[in-house]
Structures are given as C-alpha cells and as structure tokens.
C-alpha cells in the first residue's frame, strides 16, 4: 500500500506541467476553440512529449507505461483544460495492443505512438446512451472481408481522426472493428461540444473494416474503463486548478471593505470543495490502480470511481461559479471554461446517475477498497 509517485513519474508530471504552462496558455486554447476545437500541431507536441505512445509497448515505438503514468499525464492536461483528446489515444492504443491481431497492431501502434495517426473510439449511439451492450451498428463478412454499417454519435475529433475503433454486432454479438476515416462509405458531420473541443457524427455505410476482436463487449467495457480512469484523472487536474483559481480570487476580491475569503458562509463552501476534491483524488487513484483487476472487480471499482468524480465535479464546478459571482458566468473569464469542462467530463463515459445504477446493480454483501 503506497500512494507515492516514483521519481520517473514525478519527472513525467513536471514535463507535462511545463508544456501546459508554457505551451498551452488560455489565449492559445481560445484560438483553437475559435478555429474548430482541435489543433493537430498541439497533438504533435503531445506526441513529442511521448504521451501518445504512453501505453504503446517499446517494441512498437512507445513508452510501455502503465495506468499510474497515464493518470499523472491526464491530471496535468486537465489542469490546462487541454482540448486535444489524449484519453482517446490511450483507449485505442491499449485496445489494439490487447485485442488486435499482430498485423493490425504493427500497422497502427507505431503510427499512434509517433502521433502520425489518431485513432478514436466511436461507440456511442442515439439509442444506447451509456449502455455498452446496446448496439445497432452491424457488421457483415463477405469473402473474408468485413464491412460495417451504422451511425455513431459524439465521436471525439470524428472528422480529424485517421481511424475509428467501432463496436458492431455480428450475429447479435458485439465485435470490435477498426474503420479508417478515408474508407468508402464513411461520412462525418463535425461540431464543437460544450467544452470547446471537437466531435462528429460518424455515418458508416458498408464501410470496409478490419476485425479487432469478436469478443467485443468485454473489450469495449475494458476500453471504456480506461476512458473512465483517464477522465477521473483529468477531472482531478481540472478541479485542482478550479479550486486554486477560486481561492486566489477570494483572497483578492473585496466587498464590504474586506476580502470575500473572510466570510464564514463562503469559507465553509471552500471546505466542502476541498472535501470533494480529496474524495475525488482518492477515487481517481483507486480507478487507475484497479484497471488491471479481474473484469468484475474492475467494473465495480470504475463505476464507483466515476460516480464519485461525477459528484465532485458537479459540486466544485457549481461552487466555483457561485463563489466568484457574476464574473464566472462570462465567456471572457477562465473559470467558466473550467466549469464547462467539468460538466462535460461528468457526461462522458457514463454520467453520475448511470454510474450509480452500475454501483447499485453490482453491490455485494461486503464492500470496501479491497472488496
């Protein structure tokens, strides 16, 4: 039982933090949002830091790191509310590495690690909400070649990605496929999401696909759990920075002749925010440290973690706005962007209510960190 970070992990944190502080300031972010919510050059800088190859084995040109390193990197990206979706890269690289045939791995993993190819998960459908077992997209095989038809919603950087990891049913069972965006039958309709990042509706009509695994549902659950762990860590970074900005403001802003940080009604809100931050941070550690647990245990743990982070994000975001007052509901001031990021992260990979349902359905007689 040890929650200290190693020297290497601290170095990784420092490197990412430096890049965020110097290379990703609010003005640059604002310009990226205005230009469509995604900047391939930024993604390239993240690749130079080694982040895109974080989960990719050294054999395929990556760093071969684990969930704790991913957590460290995501926390720091969260601190800067970075738009470019490293979570997607971590999900798809891990999924390919664990489940794809060797040839598919060799074709994609080195390019993902180098930042040359962006592969994202395209799993959401209108009729499924957060339920992974519901999938209307279908795959068919003809002469050894697969094709997929269906519509996937709110796909991160859907019109910019080079390929998608797509769940589709084969004889009623979910399988996972890789579909290239440039393939015939693929069309996208892109837009900006509430946090300023980019997404798209992806329509597949008899699109040529490569099979990753026929055992798709368990692979998809694993993929989404990686997404949950990343989101929890990112949320911790966003919340940490949100609190720091709020505390700074409260010690500067004067009303009735004194700093508003002197008012007990407000101080108690800050104490409650600190509670939610530390509970959230604890459960983010828990999420990452349970990622390699057996599937049942992992699912239960990740649902608990995402539920806690959902509660924490909603609370800290709303309180940060309230404690700032009017300035926080302007587009100009930075806190409104942190608030929107927190809101969107709660609604990604299963929101609070969905996760509560998961926890509730998976309860056992005993409960605890080790149960």
């Amino acid at each position, binding site marked *: 039982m040890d929650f200290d970070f190693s020297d290497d992990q601290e170095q990784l944190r420092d490197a990412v933090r430096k890049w965020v502080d110097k290379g990703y300031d609010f003005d640059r972010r604002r310009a990226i949002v205005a230009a469509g919510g995604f900047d391939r050059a930024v993604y390239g800088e993240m690749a130079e830091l080694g982040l895109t190859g974080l989960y990719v084995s050294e054999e395929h040109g990556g760093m071969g790191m684990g969930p704790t390193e991913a957590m460290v990197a995501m926390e720091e990206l969260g601190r800067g509310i970075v738009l470019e979706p490293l979570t997607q890269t971590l999900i798809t690289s891990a999924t390919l590495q664990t489940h794809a045939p060797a040839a598919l791995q060799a074709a994609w993993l080195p390019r993902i690690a180098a930042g040359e190819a962006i592969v994202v998960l395209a799993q959401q459908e209108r009729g499924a909400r957060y339920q992974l077992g519901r999938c209307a997209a279908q795959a068919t095989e003809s002469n050894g070649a697969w094709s997929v038809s269906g519509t996937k919603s709110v796909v991160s950087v859907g019109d910019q990605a080079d390929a998608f990891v797509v769940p589709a049913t084969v004889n009623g069972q979910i399988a996972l496929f890789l579909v290239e965006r440039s393939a015939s039958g693929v069309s996208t309709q892109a837009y900006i999401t509430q946090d300023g990042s980019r997404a798209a509706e992806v329509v597949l009509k008899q699109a040529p696909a490569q099979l990753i695994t026929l055992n798709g549902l368990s692979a998809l659950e694993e993929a989404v759990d990686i997404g949950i762990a990343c989101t929890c860590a990112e949320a911790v970074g966003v919340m940490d920075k949100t609190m720091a900005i709020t505390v700074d403001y409260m010690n500067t802003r004067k009303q009735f002749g004194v700093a508003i940080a002197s008012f007990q009604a407000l101080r108690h809100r800050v104490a409650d925010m600190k509670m939610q931050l530390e509970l959230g941070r604890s459960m983010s550690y828990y999420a990452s440290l349970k990622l390699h647990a057996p599937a049942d245990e992992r699912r239960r743990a990740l649902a608990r973690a995402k539920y806690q982070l959902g509660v924490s994000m909603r609370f800290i975001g709303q309180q940060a706005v309230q404690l700032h007052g009017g300035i926080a509901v302007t587009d100009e001031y930075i806190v409104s962007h942190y608030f929107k990021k927190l809101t969107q992260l709660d609604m990604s990979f299963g929101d609070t209510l969905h996760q509560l349902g998961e926890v509730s359905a998976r*309860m056992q007689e005993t409960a605890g960190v080790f149960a």
Partner: protein
Amino acid sequence: MDLAFTPEELAFRDEVRTWVKANLPTELSHKVHNAMRLTRDDMQTWAKILGKKGWLGYGWPKQFGGPGWTAVQKHLFEEECALAGAPRVVPFGPVMVAPVIMAFGNAEQQKRFLPGIASGEVWWSQGYSEPGSGSDLASLKTRAERVGDKYIVNGQKTWTTLGQYGEWIFCLVRTSTEGKPQTGISFLLIDMKSPGITVRPIKLLDGECEVNEVWFDNVEVPAENLIGEENKGWNYAKHLLAHERTNIADVNRAKRELERLKRIAKTEGVYDDLRFRDEIAKLEVDIVALEMLVLRVLSAEKSGKNSLDIAGLLKIKGSEIQQRYTELMMQAAGPFALPFIFEAMEAGWQGNFPGGTLANAPLAANYFNMRKTTIYGGSNEVQRNIVAQTVLG
C-alpha cells in the same frame, strides 16, 4: 503506487485475525453485530483480554510496553477488531490520556498510571466540556487553585462519556485568568473517588445514559497529579488531538455496519427497491472513498513524503457516514422501527417484539444516538473552519 498491502502487512493482518477469532467472546460479537446494549462488564471484558495480550494500548511505543506498531499495523488491527464485531476500545485511557502522560508526564506519573491503563483495570473519563464551553473549549471555567501541595478544584464538567463508570478523570482546569484563555489552562489527573465529586448521568434522546455531568465541590487534588507545567495544559490537549488521526474516521466500523444495513434491507424487503438500493449504493461509494482517503494518510505517514493534513476531512466525512448508515437502517425498517421497547435492546430478551424481528429494536435508538457524531470532537462546523484555514489561509 500500489494498492496492495505488503506481504509482511498481510501476514500481520492474518495473525491479528486469527488471534481475534480465538479470543473474542461470541456473546460480545453477537451484541456488537446486532447493536445490542453493551454493559460496563462487556467493555471491560474485552479491554482486559486485549490488555493481557499487550494490545489494549495498541498505539503505544515499545518503551512504554506497547507493541510499537506502524500506522498501517494499527489500522489493520482496528479493521480486524471492527469486522469481527469487537466492542470499540473505550478510548479515554489508552488512546487519549496515555499518550499525554507518555509525552508530558514525569517518570513517576508514567510508572503510576500507565500499567493500569494498559491492562484495562482502571476506567478513565475525560473532563473537557463545560456547560458554557462547547466548541469554544478554551473558555472553560472549572478552577484549580494551588494551596500548598494541593489543588482545590471547583466547577462543573459535562458530556462526560461513560463517566458513571469512571475511576479517574483527566481534566482541563483553569489555573490563571491572565492573558489569552488558552494560556491559563492546566492538565490535571483526578481520582473520581475524591470527596466533593458528584456524577449525575444525563438521560439522552435514545433513553440511554451515555454521558454525565461531573461536579467538583472543593475537591482536593495532590499537586503531583499535574501533568507537565501549570498553564501549559492547552498545548498538551492539542497534542492529544493531533494524536487522533485516521481512527477518528472509523471507516472500519462503517464497513461492518454497511454489511448490517444490507442484511436489514434484505429482511425488510427494500434491498431490491431501486429507490432504496441506490441510497445504499451512494453510501457504499462514500465508504470506499473514505477508506481510500484513510489509506492515503497511512501511506503518507509510512513514507514520510507528502504529509496529508486532512484530519478535519476525515472527521467530517466519517461522522456523516455514521449518521447516514443508522438513518438508512431505520428507514429500511420503516414503521417497524417505531416500537420503543427499551429491554428489547438487551441480549437474551425473550419478549415478543412488535416490529417483526428483534433486529429492528435498536434502529431508531442508534439513529438518535449518532446525531452526536457531528457535534462532538470539534463540531463539523469547527472542522470546516479548520479545513478552510488550510486552503484559504
């Protein structure tokens, strides 16, 4: 980063588990698992069993006869005792006054008082709160006047938990009214058999007399019972509070009570009612998150890196959770939690409980009793002040 305990820690846990299983009387664990009333003898029985093994002072260093365990070992010991259904160690002697005697008492005092605490022979009580001094403890007024080689103590303490059983009481008393209120307080050990002491039990909302008023009327206390220096008592008391860290969260008991809540919910037919079940699920996440928080504090203590100054958060969350599980247990029983039959909370009661099952008899009383947790030990509002201070300055 690693969630798992080390092989040595796991071996230690197994050793404790085996010992507790072999030595905890089943009539005691039966009472604890079903929240039935514990007598003074019940609590003393377990204290003496632990004392004989040298584990009543389980937080003590070796030089004072304790096991010298690490923070993690102490946590594992508390967890094994809680899950097995052992009565809580009454903290006033081994957990609260003993560390103060060790740190600030003289050799004579250590020799005189520590053995009786370690064995469980002597029952200690705490004399802090007064009718006019709750959250503002430093305003306390019970006076101790030095006359020759004695102190003459006059005043009143209150909320003295289980003081009706107390043989000795450690008190904060006023020895000076000069300067700040904190600088005129002394730490005095008082024999409760001394003439002039009156103990009056206070009946509480659950029907129990868990706390007492303690009156001091010209009570003579030998000056040798003063701990450390006169007027430095506030510092010693603060040391005591700092000594209380993770066990204030009581997360291990919460894990046991969550299991009990699920059993009650199943018996009462609400476990599969999603509206109710989701409330249990929320509590389950709360408990896991609190346990992670506790483990983080233990890890920080172990490595000495990244010290986590979050005792206030542990107190707030731990107490809220204690209130919540008792509330949900009562709600699970619904109308069958309402019959108030005092004797039905005694083990072995043979009457016919109108609430269907005897397990329902103590649920409302437990809920009422737990309202204290957000008030005592520094109210949760005081804790929020402390947390806010660390964040905002």
